[in-house]
C-alpha cells in the first residue's frame, strides 16, 4: 500500500478564482444590456474589442515572461479587465482608443507588476485614466441616448464610426452628438459641471434634456441595472458588503450635506448616486480584490476614502466624473490602510 502525501486541509471549497471572475462578469450583464439598449450596439463592440485586446496582451506578456500561457489566461482575469474597461469607454469611440487602453491596462498596470495578484492599481482604471488623460476628446464623446439622437444610428453606422471615425452617411461623431434640438449632448455630470461653472443654478440645469425628474435619462436605468448585478454578487458572497456600502453611504452623506447647504450650486444626492459610474464603480470597480483593501476595517476606510475623493473631484475638481482617479489614489493608500487596520488577533 502506498499513500499519497498531501497537506491539510484535505477538502476545499469548490469555487475557484476563474469562477469568481466569471461571476463578476456575469453580474455585469444586466448593466451592459441596459447600456446597449440606450446607447446602441457600440457598447458591445467596445467590450469585445477591449476583451480581445486585453487577452491578447496578456498572452503576449505571459509568453515574453516565459510563463505558461493557457492556464493563466483561464483565470479569466484579463477577460474581466477588458470587460470593465470596455464598459467604461464611450460606445462610439474609435477602435484604437479602447485597444490602447486595454493594452496599457494589461501590460503596464498588471504584467509589469508581476501579473495577477501583484498589481498595485486597478488595471481597468489605469487603462481608463491613461485614455482619459491622453485622448480627452474621444473619451468625453458620449452620444446622447438613442431616443434623443437626431440622426438614427444604425449598426452599420456604429461599426463604421468605431473603425473609421465616420458613419456610413459621412457624419463624424461630433456631429452625431447633436441631439434632436440641435444641442450638443454630454453626460449629465458633464452638463452639470459645465453649467455650474457658467453660473447656472442647479434647478435650471435640471430643465435640460439630458435630465428627467432629477436624474439623467438612461443613466438612472443603467445605474439601477448595475446595482442589481451588484446585489447578485453580494448575495453570492463574491464580494464583501463593506466596500460598496461604505462608498455609497459616504457619497450620500457628503452630497447630501453639500446639496443641503447650497441647493443651487451642487448636484443632488440622487444625481450623485444614479449617474455617471457610481453604481458600476461601487460594485465592480472598487471591489476588485487585488487592488482593494482586505481587512474588515480597511474596506470601510477604503470605500469611504474613494467616496470622499469622488465627491471632491466631482464638485471641486477639473473633471466631471472622478471615480477612476479616486480609485487609483485610494489604491495607493491601500497598503497603508491595510497595515493600520489589522484586526485584533485572538488573545492579543
Amino acid at each position, binding site marked *: *500500500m502506498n*499513500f*499519497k*502525501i*498531501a*497537506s*491539510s*486541509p*484535505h*477538502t*476545499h*471549497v469548490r*469555487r*475557484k*478564482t476563474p*469562477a*469568481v471572475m466569471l461571476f463578476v462578469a456575469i453580474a455585469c450583464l444586466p448593466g451592459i444590456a441596459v447600456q446597449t439598449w440606450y446607447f446602441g450596439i457600440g457598447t458591445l463592440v467596445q467590450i469585445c474589442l477591449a476583451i480581445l485586446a486585453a487577452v491578447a496582451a496578456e498572452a503576449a506578456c505571459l509568453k515574453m515572461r516565459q510563463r505558461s500561457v493557457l*492556464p493563466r489566461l483561464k*483565470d479569466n*482575469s484579463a477577460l474581466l479587465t477588458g470587460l470593465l474597461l470596455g464598459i467604461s469607454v464611450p460606445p462610439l469611440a474609435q477602435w484604437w482608443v479602447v485597444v490602447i487602453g486595454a493594452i496599457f491596462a494589461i501590460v503596464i498596470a498588471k504584467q509589469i507588476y508581476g*501579473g*495577477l*495578484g*501583484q498589481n498595485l492599481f486597478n488595471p481597468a482604471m489605469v487603462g481608463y485614466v491613461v485614455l482619459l488623460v491622453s485622448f480627452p476628446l474621444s473619451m468625453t464623446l458620449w452620444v446622447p441616448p438613442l431616443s434623443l439622437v437626431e440622426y438614427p444610428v444604425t449598426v452599420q453606422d456604429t461599426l463604421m464610426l468605431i473603425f473609421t471615425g465616420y458613419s456610413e452617411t459621412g457624419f463624424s461623431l461630433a456631429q452625431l452628438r447633436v441631439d434632436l434640438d440641435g444641442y450638443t449632448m454630454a453626460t449629465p455630470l458633464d452638463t452639470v459641471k459645465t453649467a455650474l461653472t457658467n453660473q447656472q443654478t442647479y434647478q435650471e440645469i435640471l430643465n435640460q434634456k439630458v435630465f428627467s425628474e432629477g436624474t439623467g435619462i438612461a443613466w438612472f436605468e443603467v445605474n439601477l441595472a448595475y446595482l442589481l448585478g451588484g446585489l447578485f454578487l453580494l448575495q453570492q458572497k463574491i464580494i*464583501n458588503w463593506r466596500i460598496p456600502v461604505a462608498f455609497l453611504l459616504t457619497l450620500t452623506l457628503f452630497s447630501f450635506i453639500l446639496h443641503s447647504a447650497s441647493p443651487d450650486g451642487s448636484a443632488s444626492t440622487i444625481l450623485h448616486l444614479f449617474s455617471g459610474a457610481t453604481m458600476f464603480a461601487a460594485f465592480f470597480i472598487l471591489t476588485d*480584490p*487585488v487592488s*482593494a483593501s*482586505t*481587512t*474588515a476595517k480597511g*474596506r470601510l476606510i477604503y470605500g469611504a476614502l474613494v467616496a470622499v475623493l469622488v465627491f471632491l473631484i466631482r464638485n471641486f475638481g477639473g473633471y466631471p466624473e472622478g471615480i477612476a482617479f479616486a480609485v487609483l489614489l485610494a489604491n495607493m493608500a491601500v497598503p497603508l490602510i*491595510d497595515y493600520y487596520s*489589522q*484586526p*485584533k*488577533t*485572538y*488573545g*492579543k
Partner: protein
Amino acid sequence: MDSLIKTIKSGYLWRFPGGVHPPQKKSLSQTGQIKRPELASKYYVSLKQHIGQQAEACVQVGDKVKKGQMLSRADTAMQLPVHAPTSGIVTDIREHILAHPSGLGEQTIIIEADGSDEWCQREGLDNYQQLPPAQILDKIKSLGVAGLGGAGFPTHIKNSRPEAIELLIINGAECEPYITADDALMREHAADIVAGINILNHLLEAKLVVIAIEDNKPEAIKAMELASADEKDIIVRVVPTKYPTGGEKQLIQVLTGKEVPSGGIPADIGIVMQNVATAYSTYRAVIHGEPLIERVVTLTGESISQAGNYWVRIGTPVAHILTQAGYNQPAEGRLIMGGPMMGFSIHSPLTPVSKITNCLLAPAMNELPDPADEQACIRCGYCADACPASLLPQQLYWHSKAREYEKAQHFDLFDCIECGACAYVCPSEIPLVQYYRVAKANIRQQAAENEKAEKAKERFNQRQLRLEEEKQARIEKQRLAAEKRKQTMQEDASAKDKIAQALARAQAQKASRSTDQAKEQAPAQSTIASDSKNNSPKSAAQAAIARAKAKKAAAQKADNEAMQSAADTDQSDIEKTAKEKAQAAIARAKAKKAAAQKADNEAMQSAADTKQSDTGKTAKEKAQAAIARAKAKKAAAQKVDNGEHANVVEPIEQSDPKTPEPTVDKPASGETNQMSQQDDKSQRIKAAIAKAKAKRKQLGGD
C-alpha cells in the same frame, strides 16, 4: 467570574469570528455501536505519543508482557508511560514509523501478540474522594492518560495547575467533518464519562462544568443530559455547528466570551478544557486501574465499506484495522489520520494508531479531490473572513512565501492554530496552512540556530582568552627557566654536563616528534631494517600500522600489552625498556604530541638511549614508526595491490563483512607461533592491517 458563570448558566452563547461550514459527512459513521476488531498479530507502541519528552523503555527484547503492563518509565513531569496493548512478547525495540505527518521514525516497542489477551494486575481507586489529589494524579500519570482530543497533552499536568480553576469545559464539540468518535462514546458511555468528569472536577474543584456538544449530535446530547441530570454543577451546553468550534480557544470564546491570552493557556483565565474521551479514560484509569491502551477511532470515508467507530488498541498498525473495516484502496489514495481539515496523510500502512488518533479517513478518488495547482493570490480576503483567530492569512502567506519571517511574526503568525479554514475557502487553492507550518518550523529552527551561534561565539571567545593566557604563562615560564639556567651556569661549571644531557634529550625529543621528516626516510630505512625477518609485504603491513590502529581489537590488545610493557619497564634493563617504550608509544598511535608530552621523561630518555645503542633492532623500530606515520598520512587513497596482500585480505572478503574481527585474528594468531617473542607486535600489526584493508575494500565496494 461569578456573574460570568451566571451568564453561562443562563444559556447565553458568544460567537467567534470567521469559521467555515464544510460538508459534515458524519452520517457515514454516525450510526451503530462501537465495534471491536480482532486482535492484530503485531503491535507497534511508539514511546512518544504525546507532547513532552519521550520516556525510557523499561522492558527488553524477549520479555513477556501482559496486557496493560507498563512498557516505559516516566520519570519527569512531562513524560508519560506507554502500556502493552495486549499480552505477548517484545520482539524488538527499534525505530519505527510514527503517527506523525513527517513519516519519520522514533523508538518503538514491537510486541508480538500471543492471542490470550491476558490482563496484568489492575488496581482501581474506588474511594478516590478520600485520597489526596497527588495520589490520584499519580495514578492518572502512571496509567498514561493523555488528552485524546488532538495534541495529547498529559492529563495529570492539566489537572494539577496551581491556579484556581473556575470552569471545567468538557469538549464534545467534535467539529471536524467525518469524525464521530466522541459522538459514539457519548452515546454509549455517557455515565462513565460523567463519572470521569467527576474525578477531573474533584481534582480541579471548578465551580462549574460545561459539557459542550455541537447541535449536530442530538443523540449524544440527550445521552449526556440524561447522565448528568443528577449533577448540579454539570451542565450540557449545545453549541451551533461551525468549524472550528471544537478548537480549544474557539470553544472557550463561544462558551465564555473570553479569549485565552496569546501564548498562554486556558488555565491563565481560570479555565481547563478536557475532551470527553479523556474524561472516559480517566474514569477507566482511576476506577478500574486500566491504562490507556485503547481508544475509539472513527474509520470512515467512501473507500471503507464498514465505516463506523471501533475500539482500537493503541499501537495497532492501521493496515490491520483497515482490513477489518473492509478497505479497498483506490489507485492513488490518501489515507488521512484525523479529520479532513487538520488531519495528516500517513505514509505507511504500518503506521501505528497513537493516543491522539481519533479518525482514519480513507476517501474515495473523487470524494476529497487533490488540490489543483496553486494559483496567484488575488487578495480576495475570503481567508481573512474565515479565520477564527482574526488573522490576515493573505499577509501571512505573502511573507511566509517570501521568507520574510520577521514580518510574518509581526502579523502574529504564531497565533495561527492551523485549523485550515483559510486554505479551505481559498479560491486559488493555495496550501496556506502548509506555508505557515514551514514558516513556523523555519523560524523555530532559526531561533535555535541563533541561540547556538551565540553560545558558540561565547565559547570561542572564552577559548581564545584561555589560549592567550596559557601562552603568556608559557612565555613567563620559559623566561624564568632561562634565567635560572644562566644563574646555575655562572655558579657551577660542572653544569656543562647537564647541558650536554639536556641537548641530547632535546634532540631525542625532536627525533621522536618530527614525523614528517621521518616520512621521507622511512621507506628506505624500513626495507633495510626489516630485511632480516620481514619480507616486503610484511614491511608494507607494518607500514599501515596507523590503519591497524583503527580497529578495536588491535587497539585493545596493543593497549593491554603496552600497559604491561610499561609496567615492565621499571624492572627490566634500560635498553629493553627503551625499546618497549618506543613501541608502546608507536602503537599508541602516532599520537605525535600526546606521546611526546606524556611519555616525556621516559620517552625522551629512551629515545636518546636508542640512538646511543645503535642496534639493528632499534633502527627497525624507528623505521616501523616512521613508516606507520607515512602510511597514515597517505591514507585510504593508496591501494597496494600486492599479491601477498591480497592473500591476507582474501579470507576477510569471503567472510561476513560485519564480523571481520574474529576472522582476521585467526590467520594472525597462526603466524604468531612462527615468530619470535619480540615480534608479536608485527603480527598484531599485520592483523590490524588486514582489517583496515578489509574495511577500505568494503567502503570502496559501497
